[in-house]
């Protein structure tokens, strides 16, 4: 390599193939947020970029954490977050009504968000220490199931269906990847097919039930619960292939689109940037997730493999459910679009996932370097 274009190793070492697309996506998102605020960098566009910058630093710090420390903190972190969930539940119980966050003074913390990466971490730790021959044994399933059920149950009580599903999805992904017998999943799916209708009528709150029914037929309630989906589809559909142009989204600017800067930010984007913008967003997530799965595949051991793919699944779940929701393929469950929706908690969760993947990438490289 010629001396003239020498790049410092510290910089060259960074995984630019992830950061460049992510930065592009975040900058694009801040453009969308700028437009959604009626052409103002306040209140969303600037904070979005600043948060990203802050959490990138956090991710880089996480990337430096050694594998042993990850393993060490897995159970304490799980217990800690579980305790926070319980605390939220108690405060909510006293205050009356639904409460999902703790006010720490300088920021509001949503423990259920933290639980998404932590459930992956604790399950990876569990299967890492589980002897391989117990994987097909009930002793390989029951503790894990309990680890999932506890936080999912608490979150469900809040009630926050979307996050509860995200926790379950992350957990099941680990169970699947850890090598549990395929027949369990098949029979589990069959059982879910039976239980779901029952749960629908017993466990779900009225407003959640309404979301499901209106998702199945949004036209049935165009001004009520179906309003979100209908308006979101109008925004995306009226954008066409090239969009209406930057700053010309009438659905978002005239306030027809609800939550235009958070849950439905994709619709805001699609209205102005069209299918082209949508493909760009999908492409960035494709690049990031492909990188994440590659990291998982070349991870040095079971713990890091499971951790890496679990993080990928968590990010994927956010993306998939959010996009399905805004395009009318899933009920409105209140899950933001990673790196695009304005919101600190989800940005933090997703950057924890990215940071963890970076760390695992580093472990793999070092291992391969040693080998």
């Amino acid at each position, binding site marked *: 390599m010629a001396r003239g274009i020498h790049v410092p190793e510290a910089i060259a070492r960074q995984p630019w193939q992830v950061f460049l697309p992510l930065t592009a996506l975040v900058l694009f998102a801040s453009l969308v947020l700028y437009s959604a605020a009626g052409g103002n960098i306040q209140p969303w566009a600037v904070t979005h970029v600043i948060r990203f910058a802050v959490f990138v630093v956090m991710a880089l710090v996480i990337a430096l954490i050694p594998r042993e420390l990850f393993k060490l903190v897995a159970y304490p972190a799980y217990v800690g977050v579980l305790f926070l969930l319980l605390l939220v539940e108690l405060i909510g119980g006293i205050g009356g009504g639904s409460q999902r966050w703790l006010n720490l003074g300088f920021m509001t913390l949503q423990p259920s968000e933290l639980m998404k990466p932590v459930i992956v971490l604790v399950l990876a730790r569990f299967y890492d220490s589980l002897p391989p021959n117990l994987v097909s044994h009930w002793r390989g399933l029951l503790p894990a199931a309990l680890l999932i059920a506890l936080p999912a149950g608490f979150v469900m009580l809040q009630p926050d269906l979307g996050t509860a599903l995200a926790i379950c999805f992350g957990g099941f992904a680990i169970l699947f990847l850890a090598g549990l017998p395929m027949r369990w999943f098949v029979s589990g799916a069959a059982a879910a097919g039976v239980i779901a209708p029952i749960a629908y009528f017993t466990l779900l709150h009225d407003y959640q039930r309404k979301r499901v029914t209106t998702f199945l037929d949004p036209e049935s309630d165009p001004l009520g619960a179906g309003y979100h989906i209908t308006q979101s589809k109008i925004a995306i559909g009226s954008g066409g292939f090239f969009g209406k142009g930057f700053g010309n989204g009438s659905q978002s600017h005239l*306030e*027809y689109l609800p939550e235009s800067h958070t849950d439905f930010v994709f619709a805001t984007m699609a209205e102005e940037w*069209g299918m082209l913008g949508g493909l760009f967003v999908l492409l960035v997530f494709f690049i990031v997730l492909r990188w994440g799965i590659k990291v998982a595949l070349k991870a040095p051991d079971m713990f890091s493999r499971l951790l890496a793919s679990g993080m990928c699944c968590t990010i994927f779940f956010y993306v998939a459910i959010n996009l399905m929701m805004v395009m009318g393929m899933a009920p409105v469950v209140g899950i933001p679009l990673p790196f695009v929706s304005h919101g600190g908690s989800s940005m933090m969760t997703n950057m924890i996932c990215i940071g963890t993947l970076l760390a695992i990438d580093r472990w793999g490289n070092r291992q391969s370097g040693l080998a």
Partner: protein
Amino acid sequence: MFGEPRRMTSAMLADRFERRSLLIGAAMALAGVLLALRMAWIAIFQNRKYELESESNRVNLTLIPPRRGWILDRFGAPLASNRADFRVDIIPDRLVDGEKVVEELGNLLHLNAAEQGDLGERLEKASGFQPVEVAAGLDWERYAAVSVRLPDLPGVVPQRGFSRFYPTGPSVGHLIGYVGAASAEEYEQEKNPLLITPGFKIGKDGLEKQYEKLLRGEPGARRSEVTASGKIVRDLETREDVPGHPIRLTINGPLQDYASRRIGLESAAVVVIDCESGGILTLASMPSFDPNSFADGIGRLEWKMLNDDDHIPLLNKAVRGLYPPGSTMKPMAGLALQMNGVSPDERVNCPGGYQLGNRFFRCDAVHGSVDLRAAIEHSCNTYFWSMAHRVGYDAIAPVAKMLGLGQEFDLPGTKQRYGTIPDAAWKMRRYKQEWSASDSLNASIGQGYVSVSPLQLAVMTARIASGRNLLPSLIYGRPKPLGPALPFTPEQLAVVHDGMFNVVNGSGTGAGVRIDINGVKLAGKTGTAQVRRLVSRGHVGDWKSRDHSLFICYAPADKPKYAMAVVVEHGTFGARAAAPIARDVMTYLFDPASAMATLTALEREWGGTAAERMAAKYRAYGATYTRPPPDTAKEVGVKPAAPNAPPSESAITRPTATTPVSTQPAEAHSSQETD
């Protein structure tokens, strides 16, 4: 751990992990493709549909109520026009907390308690998206006060628009009618969205209703960008409205106003007809209502006040009031007698009455020997009784009808009552009784069963004055063709003209209203109609039991140009109440300045101009029925209104007296006296 049988190894699990993570990766990719396809379906294949829906979200089409066609008088001056104003409406369906909003609006717009009550009542009756008017004709300050508080007042819509304006207010109330917001039934009938557009008014009565189609015009449209909450962001494009067609009337606007004001405190009707074309110059009925306050949606209190008034302001007496014509029939009877061979020079001795069988009909004076001219001049009943007895009443009734009495005329926007010219067949039909000789006597001097409207009297006067079969018309430039020629010779007419000339200019009953404006003289006939039946309703001397006062006249006497009929309800003698009004109105046509001077002096005496009297009455009325109206009353509730303040003991203290029509003299039998 090692002792257990090992079916699984770490390597096997790693293998399994690799397979399964590839599977998951593939599933993720598949999900990505599906999402892309879904987006393509919505954004590309269904693009047209969603583009339309987005547009219909974004763009709101509002109709702009068309400016209503003006109603003009014969000189082209407006009797009804439009003025730009600011208004505030409420869309009931968008209201969140009705009571709070009404209260808030009450503060912002300075509505008094009665007006707030009205508004609350209208809101209760209202439904859906049909806007309810809160206030119109607002000044900029109050309009702005509401506009800036809109975010706290969901359902409240302030806007600029035009509202109907009647410059002379109550003077034209009965003539033109009024406009108002369309009712639910009217909307059901027409299904036109314009009808429920805030600020749009349709004709509710009179000419405004009759010519609704012509006056309405074409609405404009405004396309504007609106937010989800209905706030207008900007106007995209506007199509101007097409104003309605103007209508020009034969009415002489200043004369109509003068006549209405000149009526003053009385309850009366004045009709003036052009003797050349038959065009109606004035069709005044007072007291009246102010059509301006109807256009804004009349207040409950004002409505009650109008209804409680025993002068019946809501009745158009000019075309719907029916009165015994009394002696104003005599010129007509004079023509009928001549037609039936009575020589105008034949004399009848009046000993102060007339003996029919065993009944003695009293004349009001001992007139001595009178011929036809003198009988008209002095209004001698004896002459007409004896002559009518000779030719028979059956010879007189057809002439009365021929001259317009008991007839209905083709006049737009008037709901005429045509009264009664009785004859034997009519009496049999109505009362199952034979026609009697005394019926003939009563009918021949315009009493008994005879009842006519002021309009008919004016037509009769115009026909007698001109000798032509004039038909009254109201639309300028479209006079009605003459009816079949009248069968009177010029000589016969001249006799009657002489009699009527002498009534005023000789030693007759109307000598007190003599005029001479550059040679223009008045010819007329007084009339006093008894209101016998009504005596039972009150004490003698009570307003209600007094005689009606009538006067018919034309001028110039030598070359008739204008014919007029004046009826003053319960005005006592014709010469006392009706004739002075007729004189002043006629004077106004030839010498406006001196007529105005007379009126100004009179109005000072009556307690101010018409508007001031109306305002004072409204305040006094409000004080008796609600809390004392606040000082703001003058700027909100009270519109310049009916120049009618009946004698001070009137509606305020008297219990309701809402007889639909003032008199129904068909039942008011027997009269022995006229003036």
